[in-house]
């Protein structure tokens, strides 16, 4: 008698704050998500996997037998593992402040924690001190292409300074961007150096624009910052595969403990291949290393709990130190506010993504959402990223996207994605956001034609209207506005196909962009009221 081979494997995502383990099994001719569990980073993974597999056995013994996990050692199951690493520090130097600004902005959305200095405002001693700091793990030195008048005089001395640092820190990779590439000869024999010397285009806006909005410097810096199996970098490939599988425009937003990510992908059409843009922004981490006044003030804006700056800064430090901890009560409210503020920083760093068409589906993912009811997740996103139109929202609740993106073979990745797509995305619902509403008692009405009949709702400007539409159901929402509004195009009458979810259909009639009261108490009350409609027990 032979022991049946398991038709199951584990996907493990080692995050900075939590480790997520998911059990995937072959059932009904397709790979399905059987269960998942997240535990604090630093706990033992073995017991977590044991609990996960034991729960699957108890919940559905027949399925457990079919996928062959009854008599196997849980920890012996094959694994697809990815691990997030802490973003590294990049020293950025340039001849002029304007060039430096472009380089730092590019590095900041490419997985690095940049620290910058320009020859215009920093003397060679301070610049040498920065480049020689032992925490610096790579150097970016750049100039516009062709060099601008205000940096022409400084870049040769800058090249000599960086070349001397290259001798002293041979293990550090150095990127020469734009016309700084012409200073390569200063670096002597680059082949014998352990750290690479890379030639790169200038930053966007400084002569480094690629075709179709592609940012070649950012792409190179991302590849240097993160290995291919890092789930943050793999998110681009995962988003692209998802767009291809669903044949829809996809946006994925991940708010992580060390960095936030935004990926936008469109499926191929008319013989053109699919496209993807990815930004990894460490400064948009939910809990930055050192919460300065700007970060704390940003969180205060979205806080529903009264707190002064000092107390909130203490809470943010605690969130940084132990992100898995204090998830209930005020801790949940703090996470919600910190996530809002992180989204604001992410949106600012990736504002160039806003020129893309409104995505058909927005996928949210991050450990911080594990302590928040799913419908409130969609609300957090539309509070910050406001664009007129209609999109579906979903949650990557088992944190599978990053791991799937790390599968090296695109075909295999797409196949597994196609099998798992219904399980990995928890539908949150559809959000419809018209813009250009005039204040008044009523902006019009919506009739939702569903399988169980029609449901009419008056639309009051400035608020949120919720229509119960369970996951799996679809409907047509017929909007009739009193005035012309923007909702994709401009008009008064729209019929939109909507899909249900845990939050149903959400019609967001608030201002675009959102205007919040200046007075803290009024702002808190308003935010709490909006959240209460989607977060049962938030006031407890």
């Amino acid at each position, binding site marked *: 008698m032979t022991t049946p081979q398991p038709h199951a494997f584990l996907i493990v995502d080692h995050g900075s704050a939590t480790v997520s383990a998911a059990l995937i099994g072959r059932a009904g001719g397709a790979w399905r998500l059987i269960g998942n569990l997240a535990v*604090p980073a630093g706990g033992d993974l073995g017991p977590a996997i044991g609990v996960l597999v*034991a729960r699957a056995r108890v919940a559905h013994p027949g399925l457990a037998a079919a996928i062959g996990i009854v008599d196997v050692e849980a920890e012996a199951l094959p694994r697809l593992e990815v691990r997030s690493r802490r973003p590294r520090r990049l020293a950025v130097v340039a001849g002029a402040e304007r060039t430096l600004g472009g380089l730092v902005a590019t590095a900041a959305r490419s997985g690095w924690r940049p620290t910058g200095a320009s020859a215009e405002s920093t003397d*060679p001693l301070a610049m040498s001190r920065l480049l020689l700091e032992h925490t610096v793990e790579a150097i970016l030195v750049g100039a516009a292409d062709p060099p601008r008048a205000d940096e022409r005089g400084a870049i040769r001395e800058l090249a*000599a300074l960086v070349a001397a640092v290259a001798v002293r820190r041979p293990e550090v990779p150095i990127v020469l961007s734009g016309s700084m590439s012409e200073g390569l000869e200063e670096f002597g024999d680059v082949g014998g150096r352990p750290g690479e010397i890379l030639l790169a285009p200038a930053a966007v806006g400084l002569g480094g624009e690629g075709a179709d909005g592609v940012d070649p410097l950012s792409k190179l810096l991302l590849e240097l910052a993160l290995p291919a199996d890092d789930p943050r970098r793999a998110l681009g490939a995962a988003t692209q595969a998802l767009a291809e599988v669903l044949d829809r425009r996809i946006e994925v937003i991940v708010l992580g403990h060390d960095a936030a990510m935004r990926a936008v992908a469109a499926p191929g059409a008319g013989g053109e291949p699919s496209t993807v843009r990815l930004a990894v922004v460490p400064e948009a981490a939910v809990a930055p290393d050192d919460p300065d006044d700007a970060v704390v003030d940003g969180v205060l804006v979205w806080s529903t709990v009264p707190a002064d700056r000092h107390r909130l800064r*203490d809470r943010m430090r605690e969130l940084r130190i132990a992100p898995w901890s*204090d998830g209930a009560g005020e801790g*949940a409210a703090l996470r919600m506010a910190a996530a809002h503020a992180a989204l604001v920083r992410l949106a600012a760093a990736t504002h160039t993504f806003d020129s893309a068409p409104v995505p058909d589906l927005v996928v949210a993912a991050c450990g911080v959402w594990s302590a928040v009811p799913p419908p409130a997740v969609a609300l957090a996103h539309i509070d910050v990223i406001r664009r007129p139109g209609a999109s579906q929202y979903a949650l990557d609740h088992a944190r599978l996207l990053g791991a799937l993106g790390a599968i090296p073979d695109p075909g295999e990745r797409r196949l597994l994605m196609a099998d798992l797509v219904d399980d990995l995305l928890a539908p949150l619902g559809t959000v419809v956001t018209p813009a250009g509403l005039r204040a008044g008692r009523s902006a019009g009405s919506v009739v939702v034609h569903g399988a169980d009949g029609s449901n009419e709702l008056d639309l009051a400007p400035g608020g949120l209207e919720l229509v119960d539409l369970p996951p799996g159901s679809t409907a047509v929402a017929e909007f009739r506005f009193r005035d012309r509004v923007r909702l994709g195009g401009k008009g008064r009458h729209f019929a939109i196909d909507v899909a249900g979810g845990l939050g149903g259909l959400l019609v967001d009639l608030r201002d675009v962009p959102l205007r919040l009261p200046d007075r803290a108490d009024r702002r808190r009350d308003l935010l709490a009221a909006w959240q209460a409609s989607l977060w049962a027990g938030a006031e407890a």
Partner: protein
Amino acid sequence: MTLLNGSPADLGLVRVRRLLDGPIDVTFPLAPGDRALVAAGESVVAGAPIIERVRDARLSDVVLPETSAPKPGARIVDGELLFDWRGRWRVAGGEFTEPMDSPVAGIVREVRAGSAIVVRATGRAVRGIVTLGGPTRGRLHIASWIEGELRSSSVDVGLAGTILVVGSRIGAETLTRARAMGVHGIIVAGLASKERRDYAASERRQRAALHRLQPFAVLVLEGAVRRPLAGPVMAILEALEGQEVAIVADPPTLIFDLPDLDVPPPRPDHVRIRAGQLSGREGSWAGLVGPRRFDGGVHLEAGTVRLEDGSVVAVPLGDLERFG
């Protein structure tokens, strides 16, 4: 059932906090102009000078003969060579220097001019969250605190040369007074952001003065909110009372080289509640209970803890820590 009866395997889901680390690498940063007084491979003893720091480093230009084969990072009389620019070398140097002594014994693993010295410290280490100031060395003393906080008036010159363990938190005024009284260091569970900012400002003003400051460091073991020191950590600190210890900044650590010191480990099922309403309470693991609804309408994976008074409470797994 493994899931319901709280077998020891469930305890593995609780995050482990390492109580003691083995020999660790301590990094002492160097700035251009600083002189390393040790070389890689050398052994150092606690108290031996390892760095000569330049105060207010300045940049100068020097013409060097080609026969001297100058290299970036090399030293000349004027200071440290930075780079050659149009036949003249830019040099980092300064008029005033001050020595920095090693707070630990160990082997120098790496010396990189202008960047850092790395020393593999002998002994064992208790990790903290952050060190302000430092490095420093002194005799560990457990101060007596009231309601978890050491008051400014309790610090006097009799504590000079000690490293004080001061409870759950401390104010900037007490920190400043401790430094003025010759205390070498403070070990505290939490340091609020306001106290941290006020103390850092005071420290900057002191450093701006020309006279050399005595070494002083604040090692924060837990975080930023008021929380008592963990029992197993306190047991280590009590065992170290009266012994010479060191505080270093990178990594933020308390280091002691006492091979014969016996620190009994806590019970394997000993857990501590790190956050929430029961923050600071300790007890024994009573089993995993699965997802539970907690305050704020959130559902979190939870375990139960039997507290010292015999009561059993359900706590989110993320709020618990055990010690290893």
